[in-house]
């Protein structure tokens, strides 16, 4: 008669037992015995190895490294929510392009007051420019993504081209020769949704889409200035003549075309070398890296596509120690060595960039020392990212994609984009100059 009661209480006991075991294995957080506990978020592999190294040499600080899912719609909302709830990590990886967005959400700590400027000289200027806003320093530059030109020399040779295009004019001429090989042959793809890529090309041409007017304490938006329209018109012509494919980068079709050699080049960042190795394995030995084509013959101007910083996150109870870890992470030779060799960074740290780990010949590229090509890139430090990047990229992807799909002018898409961005900034309470 009392049977069920026994059973119910047994169930309950079991449930609670399981529960307490569960909560027991979810440790972390609290500081114990005078050791400062820090958490570190990144979406790179092997970060626990670096944290272990730090913990060994810093008995008073213990860093727990937690690898997070990447992706702009996952990682950054997660960090921002955690900041809002007051349980954000102490240190986190933030891509350069998201730094102003994070700053406008008051999510980053200005580390200049913890002596960040003392290590400024250890990093390449273009990367350091990405972590600073005025006098404030919002982290340390981890890796950088200078842009260059990867091309399939076999396809180029078949089209009678002996050297990579040095200028965009040459590039347009080569596009004709390569398309003459067959209707499926394209010099490259113009991926209309690839916002970071197109922004990189704008940056290289000398455009400054966003800037801060310090006097007016307002953002200036110039997405549709003459330089940007020049770049847009250039690609418009190639798209209109059918000389470039408009398949999305990283898509199946794109990967397959790279592997067949029918998309003959990729204007990409230094990290692109790994992508080609992975997706175009059949073309081993045919690829070569060259500087990105220039608007002015003889120049060496490039831009950045990708790259990230290590920032101290607002709300940390131990900003001093968090800064110590962040600085150590990108200046310690052991940590940098793991970053370069195991994670695959193209480091912003000058010493690491010159090391033999970085500058190794790549068998896939016919034993070319690929990284050297990218080290010579000169990157304008004038480019600033907007404080509402998620919205900007959303609008931009939609607008450019629609222009290509509907065969309407891309320059018109830029005009539209300008209006949308200003509107979005205003509705989010961001001051816009002259808007």
């Amino acid at each position, binding site marked *: 008669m009392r049977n*069920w009661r026994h059973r119910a209480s047994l169930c309950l006991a079991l449930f609670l037992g399981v529960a307490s075991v569960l909560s027991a294995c979810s440790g*972390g957080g609290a500081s114990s015995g005078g050791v400062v506990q820090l958490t570190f978020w990144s979406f*790179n592999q092997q970060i626990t190895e670096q944290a272990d190294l730090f913990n060994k040499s810093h008995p008073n600080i213990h860093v727990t490294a937690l690898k997070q899912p990447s992706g702009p719609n*996952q990682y950054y909302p997660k960090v921002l929510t955690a900041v809002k709830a007051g*349980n954000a990590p102490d240190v986190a990886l933030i891509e350069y392009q998201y730094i102003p967005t994070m700053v406008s959400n008051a999510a980053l700590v200005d580390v200049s007051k913890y002596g960040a400027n003392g290590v400024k000289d250890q990093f390449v200027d273009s990367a350091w420019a990405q972590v600073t806003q005025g006098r404030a320093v919002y982290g340390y530059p981890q890796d950088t993504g200078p842009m260059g030109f990867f091309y399939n020399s076999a396809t180029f040779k078949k089209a009678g081209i002996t050297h990579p295009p040095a200028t965009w004019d040459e590039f347009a001429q080569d596009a004709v020769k390569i398309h003459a090989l067959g209707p499926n042959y394209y010099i490259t793809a113009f991926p209309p949704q690839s916002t970071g890529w197109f922004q990189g090309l704008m940056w290289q041409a000398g455009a400054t889409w966003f800037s801060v007017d310090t006097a007016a304490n307002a953002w200036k938006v110039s997405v549709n200035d003459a330089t940007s329209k020049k770049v847009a018109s250039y690609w418009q012509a190639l798209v209109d003549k059918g000389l470039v494919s408009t398949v999305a980068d990283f898509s199946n079709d794109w*990967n397959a075309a790279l592997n067949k050699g029918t998309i003959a080049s990729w204007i990409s960042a230094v*990290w692109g070398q790994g992508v080609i190795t*992975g997706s175009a394995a059949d073309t081993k030995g045919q690829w070569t890296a060259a500087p990105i084509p220039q608007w002015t013959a003889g120049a060496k101007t490039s831009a950045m596509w990708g790259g990230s910083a290590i920032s101290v996150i607002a709300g940390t109870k131990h900003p001093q120690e968090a800064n110590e870890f962040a600085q150590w992470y990108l200046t310690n030779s052991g940590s940098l060595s793991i970053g370069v060799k195991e994670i695959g960074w193209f480091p912003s740290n000058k010493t690491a960039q010159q090391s033999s780990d970085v500058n190794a010949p790549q068998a896939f590229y016919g034993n070319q020392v690929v990284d050297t090509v990218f080290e010579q890139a000169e990157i304008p430090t004038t480019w600033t990212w907007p404080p509402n990047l998620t919205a900007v990229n959303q609008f931009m992807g939609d607008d450019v994609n629609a222009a290509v799909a509907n065969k309407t002018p891309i320059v018109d898409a830029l005009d539209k984009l300008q209006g949308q961005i200003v509107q979005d900034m205003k509705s989010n309470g961001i001051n816009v100059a002259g808007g």
Partner: protein
Amino acid sequence: MADVPAVLEARRREHDERERRGVGVGVRALGPKNLLAYLALGAVAVYCLTPIYWLALSATKNNTDLFSSFGLWFAHFNLWQNLRDTLTHSDGVYIRWIGNTALYAGVGAFAGTLISVMAGYALAKYRFVGRGLIFTLVLGAVLVPQTTLALPTYLLMSKVSLTNTYWAVLLPSLLNPVGVYLARVYATAGVPDDLIDAARVDGAGEFRIFTRVALPLLRPGMVTIFLFQFVAIWNNFFLPLVVLSDPNLFPINLGLATWNFDPASHELLYNLIVTGAFLSVLPLIAMFLVLQRYWRAGLAFGSVTG
């Protein structure tokens, strides 16, 4: 008193047996009249199975073949290597993710089903003040997507310091308004009031009536609720994404997302992600096949008198 469910149980078994032999109602031979229906069903089946076919096939390919070979046929057979790599990458963290997912979905769906059935039964069989209001609230909650609740849930969890623990995923998974709604419909239709009255006359307490009379009758319905909730928790991405930050607590889907392409890394893990995704659907498929019988019964349950 214990004989009553036994009689019903026997009747259900008989029904199942008839169905198994194909002598039930509604089973007809293939003819020109229902050829169209078969074609339509066939098309739906192809539509639903093609992605699974693609996934199974892709799990046998290496990174290059994944992109360069024809998507719906084999290339180099790399399945064993893929499996080995998936299960051993990052010190075998995938196995941990399987365990976590099984725990979230298993415990969450089991306890959640029990709660749903208790609530649904109470709403169906007891008259009390506020019953209508509560049921309306439950119906309203059905309309609120789980994703929109993830952030408020996170902020609540954070207040009580439960973020980044198993509880952060388990607790919100226990409540399932659809389950309560279904359980109420099932209880209304499947548990006759007379039966409850008879049990009361025999001197059984309310809890005993629930466990001994109502639960056996509701079993097919419970399986349906369990499956729905199991799948919902198994697939839930946003809640764990927001409330968990320790990879050791991640479910499979979130874990696989951490293997996704990361521009700073030169490691491409597409084949492991695909293989991992393939492995992760196998338990779901197995569960549906095993519980299919009950599930079908549960879907139709209450459709006559409900």
